[in-house]
């Protein structure tokens, strides 16, 4: 028996994150509470280091390693880069919030880093096993993160709910994987794809496997009707955790869908296209309608996420390279908006005060015009108003579905985005048209202020000139 060591160079960024996460865990044990900023700094350093490593080792052509379980390609690199950056932003925005609530602990950052590692594995998975591995690594970290505030009954309830439903979804996913393995004889996505392509008529076991797989994926994405957990978790979890869950994991979920459905089961496109249409329409409709009734901003953002996931699926179900590019662009822009929105919510919270309700935004223009402006840009972008990145995101996915002749789907999409505009406008209304109910000044650290400003301005810059990011996404998906 001879042992062949796999090539480790393609997984360098992942190894770096793993090593650093372990190191942070150990170092943190020796720190006192007042030195906790060292943990924080190391965590940020890890993310930035990983981002730099990803940039430095960019793949020219796709490389597989770990016996075909792992792939490094341009799409993976791009998404991983944004995963790292989004998580770094999430840590940065959360820092003061955590400090004020005695949650500024080492575990928080270690779990966050392991979550990032899970996402990176998901993004680069090239077999159903590594897909599952990455997903579970992320999910387990998230379950724990939701419950990080041990004394909060709401958070514990949310974590419990998340864990039970998440396990159910993982079970579905595994069941689907086992069926696909049974039908094709492999978990390697390339082998699966070849086997599916060879089949003359679609195999019932394979289609069943696809259905279970899709249920699991939809749960992780939060697509209707598998969305029930999302609003409860967003509302129950500490805002900083909601920020973390709401941002980078969506990129990983997008990658997951791309890897499994497009790369692995591309031969079954006519089957999953139908299913995705149902998921997308339901998500867009329900997300936008129910969001109107929310008074809690985190819950509202949760329903808004659901509707955005619906739009994201529109691009994927088109099944064209343009559609995939559109979805990837949407995912990245969405993360930018989600980080910004939750970022502002976090910044409005202070010691002993949680900004939870839309009413807490009242009169923000009088208290902090700049923060109000950033939030307005984020909201308008989410509503899909031009000059902001969100408009192009919606536009390219709509274009993708019109392209394949599904004009009615595009009409459904735009109709519900008009309905959706209402609840985004309500936030703007609170900030600009109402008088403030609180007069305390909003204190923001300099670095956070710069980051949130960059976040908002980036939405405008991408709105004025989306070409760069769009071309980047197209190039990333080309190989």
């Amino acid at each position, binding site marked *: 028996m001879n042992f062949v060591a796999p090539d480790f160079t393609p997984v360098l960024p992942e190894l770096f994150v793993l090593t650093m996460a372990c190191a942070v865990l150990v170092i943190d044990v020796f720190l006192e509470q007042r030195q906790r900023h060292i943990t924080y700094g190391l965590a940020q350093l890890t993310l930035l280091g990983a981002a730099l490593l990803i940039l430095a080792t960019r793949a020219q052509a796709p490389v597989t390693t770990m016996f075909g379980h792992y792939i490094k390609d341009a799409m993976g690199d791009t998404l991983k880069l944004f995963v790292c950056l989004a998580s770094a932003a999430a840590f940065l925005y959360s820092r003061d919030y955590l400090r004020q609530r005695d949650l500024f602990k080492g575990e928080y950052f270690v779990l966050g880093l392991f979550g990032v590692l899970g996402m990176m594995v998901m993004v680069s998975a090239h077999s159903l096993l590594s897909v599952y591995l990455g997903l579970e690594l992320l999910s387990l970290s998230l379950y724990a993160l939701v419950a990080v505030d041990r004394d909060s009954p709401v958070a514990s309830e949310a974590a419990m709910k998340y864990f039970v439903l998440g396990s159910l979804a993982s079970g579905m996913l595994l069941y689907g994987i086992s069926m696909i393995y049974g039908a094709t004889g492999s978990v390697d996505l390339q082998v699966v794809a070849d086997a599916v392509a060879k089949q003359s008529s679609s195999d019932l076991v394979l289609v069943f496997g696809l259905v279970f797989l899709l249920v699991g994926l939809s749960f992780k994405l939060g697509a209707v009707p598998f969305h029930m957990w999302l609003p409860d978790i967003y509302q129950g979890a500490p805002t900083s955790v909601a920020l973390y869950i709401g941002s980078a994991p969506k990129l990983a979920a997008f990658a997951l869908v791309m890897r499994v459905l497009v790369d692995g089961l591309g031969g079954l496109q006519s089957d999953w296209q139908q299913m995705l249409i149902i998921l997308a329409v339901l998500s867009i409709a329900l997300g936008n309608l129910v969001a109107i009734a929310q008074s809690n901003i985190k819950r509202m953002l949760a329903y808004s996420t659901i509707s955005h996931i619906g739009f994201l699926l529109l691009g994927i179900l088109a099944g064209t390279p343009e559609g995939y590019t559109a979805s990837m662009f949407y995912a990245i822009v969405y993360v930018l908006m989600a980080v910004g929105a939750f970022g502002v919510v976090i910044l409005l919270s202070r010691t002993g005060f949680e900004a939870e309700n839309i009413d807490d935004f009242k009169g923000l223009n009088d208290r902090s015009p700049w923060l109000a402006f950033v939030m307005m840009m984020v909201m308008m972008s989410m509503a899909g108003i031009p000059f902001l990145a969100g408009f192009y995101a919606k536009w390219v996915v709509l*274009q993708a579905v019109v392209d394949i002749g599904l004009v009615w789907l595009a009409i459904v999409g735009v109709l519900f985005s008009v309905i959706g505009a209402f609840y985004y406008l309500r936030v703007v209304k609170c900030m600009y048209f109402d008088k403030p109910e609180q007069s305390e000044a909003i204190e923001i650290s300099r670095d956070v202020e710069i980051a949130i400003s960059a976040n908002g301005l980036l939405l405008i810059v991408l709105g004025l*000139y989306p070409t760069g990011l769009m071309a980047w996404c197209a190039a990333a998906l080309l190989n």
Partner: protein
Amino acid sequence: MLSELPLLSLVIWLPILGGIAVLFVGDENPGRAKALALTVAILTFLAGIPLYTAFDAATASMQFQEFLPWIPAFSANYHLGVDGFSMPLILLTAFMTVLVVIAGWEVIQYRIAQYMAAFLIMEGLMIGVFAALDALLFYVFFEAMLIPMFLIIGIWGGPRRVYATLKFFLYTFLGSVFMLIALIYMYNQANSFEILDFHKLPLTLTEQVLIFFAFLLGFSVKVPMWPVHTWLPDAHVEAPTGGSVILAAITLKIGGYGFLRFALPITPDAAGMLDWLIIALSLIAVVYIGLVALIQQDMKKLIAYSSIAHMGFVTLGFFIVFGLHRSTGSLSGAAMGIEGGMVQMVSHGFISGALFLCVGVLYDRMHSRQIKDYGGVVNTMPVFAAFMVLFGMANAGLPGTSGFVGEFMVILSSFKAGFWIAFLASFTLILGAAYTLWLVKRVIFGDIGNSHVAELEDVSNREIIMLSLLAAAVLLLGVWPDPLTSVMHATVDNLLQHITATKL
């Protein structure tokens, strides 16, 4: 030399960047913010003047073109250019913005820098709408306009401002998203977002009808046409004076302009087939909305309804050409319909803007817009009364004022298309005179209504400046419309040639 300068970019981006600069000056320095805003507005207007002086009226092709690749993946370009339709409207926009800045000078106390900035940014976006030759660029400007107007009504508006501004936003947004789908559909056919390529794009009748309805939804809300007009009275009543002026004078014109730039040339067969629909809606607007205006108690609401009625004339003029072409087979009278509509748009921009400013002048003193709170204003404000009577007469379409020219041209050309159309259209002269003169009678003339009216002070120099600028424009256009009509002859002829040639 002048044509070398990117003039259109200048008039778009100068106010937008100027507006941002005003924001940075901030509400802490109201004086400097106001001065900067006025400077920017005047500079923009001055920069727009060469568009007129260097304009070649002999050609229908786009002038002052600018072209930069923007989103190559979708062959969308930063392509600007003007013809005889858009150039006058750009100048109107720049002119009215100067007045709006002056009008808000002492009146707006709350967050003056944001107020001025919103109007300047709005100006740039509106000019962008008129100058865009790329459909996507047009759409971006068209939709982006909603943000500043949403804020203007919502922040500085009256008691029911939130309701009004949300209604305004959602109505307009709903109308335009269908247009977006139509644009995407045409892009897929033409592989280009150039509006001029869309003009040449062959489309089947079914496609044309669907696209036409998409445009109709988008633009009829903006115009607004009956029955999608209900947002306008609310928005006008609640908006601050400046907001009402810009809404009435410019944004309504964007709807009319949209018909000329998109609906008519892109879907000529559908437009010809469905012209009865638009004509019917226009006549309903003229007659029914005219009657509605008659019973209004609120001055702003009355002028808002009068705007809808007058805009009905514009759409009537645009769509009368098809019937005319069918019945006479020639295009001789058709040009007058479209030109009449265009003149009506510009003239209505001046008149409605002026009337809203007049109401603003009264509101600033009395804080009431109800007609019954006034009476005998002429006794305390003689100078103001003179202006108000002049603009009232112009609104009623008195010969010698700009209001007459457009209405006369449209009625004349609709006479050729059919007697009954002209008969109904001429109701506007009666109804317009009735509601406007009755308004003037109740507010201006008679005995002094109450003690508040007795204490009124006449217009200040600032108000005289802005009102006399408008009065001059109204009279000039009324007695000598040639400077306006001559620049659009070639463009109108070209459009007529295009829309009467079938695309099928």
